[in-house]
């Protein structure tokens, strides 16, 4: 299943007991106050925690560390996007002490002797909700008690909430605390388990979609994926697929396995190709029960920080009749490269890119570097339109291997906000971007908004004009009179639909339903903002004044029959303003013919670049 968004960890927090062994994998500077309710109280600074139980204080402390690590505020009033952050907390023993204390008081005395201040603590979810109140986190708030896999289950549930579009970020917190009564309870449940080995612990991770992390400039520790669950007896079926072949079929994947001590030896022995490196985190930290899955996530971050070529597989569960749950963590290679190097044809290492900061915005130029003869080949520069990324050109590439391909990325892809138009006009952005190229391209292929921006640029400055131009789905009106209120309202009202078409078309495996598509499209529209969109309007308003009467360069205008934004009739009219212009309409396409009919589009591009002269073809 193709995931539209991958989920990444951008913050960690850990509160250990003082007696936990020192080990780099738990973080050199992780806190050691898990046994000290009063110290935790001081750390949390603000008043109002007097009646909170130890588990809640411990959860708050780990949560605070993770929020701070992710660079987020810890004061509710400063939480700008509280409805975009949710909480999932997990604990099995959290409020057991409160319950036993209350019931003992009633039994030995009377209900009138219990403290009404204990009422919130009698509800197990007090840990999750107090974290929300304390830090102003208003998206979904869930508390899990799910035995030994609680922590891993919480991480999986948080990933799902983000993928389902419920929130951008999720804070996942695990807590276990033990008092005398709890240890007695454990001992009564299973005499073979050493109740004394269970330690007070709090651990937290902040998860967000890679999209949100990149947009917010968060530091990305690693990616989380592939949750697998089974009974302990069936664990080998799940894990075999990792160790045997690697999850992507790469045999040379390096693995470290964080495994729970108590997993049945018999099951493990049946797993083929077990990685030599195995770590039982509980032998370092102590028995952590429901927190283990989150402790493993924190340790995975620490591992990947220093050994980014490893994948970390973590498995928790298997005690107290529980099932097992595994999660995979990996350095997010792809994401880092997506930020600084484009994803093109899946062969990331064959591409290089250069990022320039222009007026505070990043403009990025990507190019194939594998081909030593590229200089001999005709070069084509591709420029994406509004709220698109350069992945829109990906389907075309395999048909254009004989050419030297260049790709530019501009702020109107929208992830950096809506005010880029205040800094430079669209044509000036293009000029600065094209300036990054070592030499002028032979051909420019521009899509949608960028096609118009490119026309504005060449009409102002003929020196940038390449030998051939391809405009895909540009916007055009022949006369000023044609741009009236109905045209304006058409573009305003159908903009979301257009974004949705782009989301749909890029969702190759069709895994989004329309509800999700709309939610994602709304998010994209929100990011582009009214200011960003207005740059499109301005450029549309300029189109009737375009004058190319003495322009000799061949121009090919392409669009799709069902394009609602750039109608075939307007594209045909635009082609007519160039002495060497012509248009072609693809029958099976909408606004994205290069994705829908890449082979045919590539043919048109190749024909044009090979043609000596188009004069007279009109």
């Amino acid at each position, binding site marked *: 299943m193709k995931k539209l968004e991958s989920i990444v960890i951008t913050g960690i927090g850990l509160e250990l007991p003082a007696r936990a062994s020192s080990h780099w994998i738990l973080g050199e500077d992780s806190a050691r106050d898990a046994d000290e309710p009063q110290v935790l109280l001081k750390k949390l600074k603000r008043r109002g925690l007097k009646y909170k139980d130890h588990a809640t204080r411990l959860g708050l402390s780990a949560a605070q560390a993770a929020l701070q690590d992710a660079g987020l505020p810890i004061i509710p009033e400063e939480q700008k996007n509280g*409805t975009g952050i*949710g909480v999932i907390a997990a604990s099995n*023993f959290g409020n*057991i002490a409160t*319950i*036993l204390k*209350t*019931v*003992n008081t009633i*039994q030995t005395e*009377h*209900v*009138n002797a*219990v*403290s*009404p201040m204990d*009422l919130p603590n*009698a*509800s*197990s*979810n*007090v840990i*999750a*909700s*107090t974290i*929300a*109140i304390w830090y*102003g986190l*208003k*998206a*979904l*708030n*869930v*508390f*899990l*008690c*799910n*035995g030994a896999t609680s922590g891993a*289950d919480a991480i999986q549930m948080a990933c*799902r909430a983000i*993928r*389902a579009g*419920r929130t951008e970020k999720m804070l996942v917190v695990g807590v276990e605390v033990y008092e005398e*009564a709890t240890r007695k*309870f*454990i001992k*009564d*449940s*299973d005499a073979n388990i050493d109740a004394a080995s269970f330690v007070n612990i709090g651990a937290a991770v902040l998860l967000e979609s890679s999209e949100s992390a990149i947009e917010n400039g968060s530091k990305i520790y690693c990616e989380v994926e592939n949750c697998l669950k*089974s*009974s302990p*007896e*069936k664990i080998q079926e799940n894990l075999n697929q990792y160790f045997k072949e690697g999850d992507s079929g790469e045999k040379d994947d390096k693995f470290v396995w964080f495994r729970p001590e108590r997993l049945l030896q018999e099951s493990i022995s049946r797993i083929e190709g077990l990685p030599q490196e195995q770590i039982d985190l509980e032998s370092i930290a102590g028995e952590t029960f429901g927190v283990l899955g989150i402790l493993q996530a924190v340790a995975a971050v620490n591992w990947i920080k220093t050994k980014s070529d490893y994948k970390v597989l973590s498995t928790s569960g298997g005690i*107290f*009749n*529980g*099932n097992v749950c595994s999660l995979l963590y990996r350095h997010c290679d792809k994401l880092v490269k997506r930020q600084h190097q484009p994803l093109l044809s899946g062969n990331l290492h064959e591409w290089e890119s250069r990022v320039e900061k222009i007026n505070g915005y990043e403009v990025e130029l990507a190019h194939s570097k594998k081909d030593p003869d590229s200089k001999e080949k005709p070069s084509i520069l591709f420029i994406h339109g509004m709220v698109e990324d350069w992945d829109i050109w990906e389907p075309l590439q395999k048909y254009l291997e004989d050419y030297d391909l260049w790709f530019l990325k501009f702020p109107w892809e929208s992830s950096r906000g809506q005010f880029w138009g205040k800094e430079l006009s669209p044509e000036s952005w293009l000029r600065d971007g094209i300036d990054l190229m070592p030499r002028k391209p032979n051909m420019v292929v521009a899509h949608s908004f960028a096609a118009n921006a490119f026309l504005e640029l060449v009409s102002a400055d003929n020196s940038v004009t390449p030998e051939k131009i391809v405009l895909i789905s540009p916007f055009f009106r022949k006369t000023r009179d044609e741009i009236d209120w109905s045209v304006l309202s058409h573009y305003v009202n159908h903009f979301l639909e257009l974004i949705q078409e782009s989301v749909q078309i890029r969702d190759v495996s069709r895994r989004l339903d*329309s*509800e*999700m598509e709309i939610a994602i499209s709304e998010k994209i529209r929100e990011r582009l903002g009214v200011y960003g969109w207005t740059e499109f309007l301005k450029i549309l308003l300029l189109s009737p004044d375009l004058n190319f009467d003495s322009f000799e360069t061949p121009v090919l205008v392409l669009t799709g029959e069902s394009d609602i934004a750039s109608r075939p009739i307007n594209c045909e009219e635009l082609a007519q303003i160039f002495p060497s212009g012509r248009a072609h309409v693809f029958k099976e396409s909408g606004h994205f013919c290069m994705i829908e009919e890449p082979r045919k589009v590539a043919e048109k591009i190749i024909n044009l670049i090979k043609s000596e002269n188009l004069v007279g073809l009109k």
Partner: protein
Amino acid sequence: MTICITGAGILTSIGDSPENVFENLCNNISGLKSISGFTKEKFNLQSAYEIDDRKTEGKDESGRSTRWLLRVIEDALKNASLEPGSRKMSVLVGTGLREHRSLELWNTEKQKCDVDSLDYGSAVRELLGSETDVTTIVNACAASNFGLGIAHDMISLGEADIVVVAGCDSITESMFGLLGRANPVIPEALRPFEKNRKGVIMGEGAAAVVLERQSHADARNASPIVKVRGVGMSCDAYHETAPDIDGIKNAISDAHKRSSCSVDDIDLIMAHGTGTIANDMVEAQVLADLFESRTGNVAVSAIKSMTGHTSGASGLIGVVIAMEAMRTGKVPPTLGLEDVIESASCLNFVKDEPLEVEIRIAQINAFGFGGVNAVAILEQVS
């Protein structure tokens, strides 16, 4: 993608099937009785809406909520023409108090309670097979509606074909005591939205539904009973026990947005209505604010007046009753509602006798301690 319910099971103090619980609600039958699980002399409040199933009268026993959970899951699967254990499925259990009552009985009477009975995983896997993915969501009184929302996400994202969503809660001595201790007066009954209401009284119950894609149900020749349009969720981030107008509004708006519907589309609101001063005032205020603009009034019913506050099970119990209301074209009255709390004229609090009306779309509210809110929207299958 259309997601629907293909089977349901329910157990409360006033019945053990969707049909008979609904019929009793329509006949104003209350499950309120003198408490039988605890020593009466230790408490001021002497009544609750208990399920009367103890083997020895007056002697409490461990494992009751687990027993009910398994029963309603079996009923729901049977209703959906599914054999327990016949195929892999996921189960989400929403609860407020887990098996805390068993823990209390371990503490005071050395009755059986193990670490693994603190969540429902082991018990459900025993019924449905060891590879069943079971998650226990402990989200106070909104727990089972959260379960419904998460199940909806699992199916939308293609993670699961069939998800059983359940809710269950038995009364614990500690919560019964603390709720009584926090209320300065002793309520004679739970009277939602009544001007002279005196507070909440706990109830016991369980419910389960089978959730799947309509296309999946069609493929196995199962009949959808009702569509789940969407579930909205929010957290007040305001107060541990007091409700908050904005947080509840956020959950309702989120539910409407996810269900692509508006206040004008809602024919029935199954209110959270707990009979406390704070909840009913805030809930009535929120509903009045949000539904003010609509044309015609909307039926509001609060069944906790007869089932008591069934904690984590209450949301899903509301869902099952809304399904019956759609099927029968009747809305159960709110028992004990005489003088309606001041609110807007657009809200038609059903009282005295059932209201006969066609229900196409219903909204089920559930709000819990900690300010956790989950609101479900159901649609009649045409």
